[in-house]
């Protein structure tokens, strides 16, 4: 099959999509901000 015909944005299975969303949420880190050098 020609790989260029594969649509990467095509809907995937529900469980795969939900697992992927969970992984992205859990891997999102909101970092602490440090401004002590300006004190």
């Amino acid at each position, binding site marked *: 099959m020609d790989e260029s015909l594969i649509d990467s944005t095509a*809907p995937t299975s529900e469980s795969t*999509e939900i697992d992927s*969303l969970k992984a*992205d*949420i859990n891997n*999102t880190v*909101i970092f602490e901000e440090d401004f002590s050098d*300006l004190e």
Partner: protein
Amino acid sequence: MHKILLATIIFCSSFLFVPALHAETSTGKVGDDNSQKIQQELEARREEQRQEIQTKRIETRLRLAKNHAERLQKRFSFYYERLNNIITRFQARLDLSKTEGKDTTTSQQLLDQAKSNLLSAESKGKEAIQTFSSFNPEWSQDEMQNKVRLGQSQAEEARNAFKQVLELLKSALKSYD
């Protein structure tokens, strides 16, 4: 005769001593003037050094503020893009599930709240970036300190808003399961 001779000697001697005395007094005055001049030069030099230190301090603070603005810009843009991408994908999944007859009410409510909070986080982030980008070398020490506190508080608000979005997304996803 002796008396006349003695008087003459004393009279003549006075002409010898007066210039010497005058010279001594003049030297003292010159010394005072020199000392004053040196003092003034030292004071001027100290003032110049104080100004140089102050200028360097201001330059450093401006550079640091600019660095913070750039870092916040990168981080907040990254958070926004990433969370917005998750929201978009989750919304697509909810829309699909709705057409399949699944009850998505709670998830949708939480997702709507996440969308709204994301816009708020983005806006607060821009305020913080604007504050750190607008540092002015003409500001006084107090003005600069106040701006640091303001920017810090705005950045903290933005950060908390992004964290809330993340928590709302976790809840929305949990309620979907």
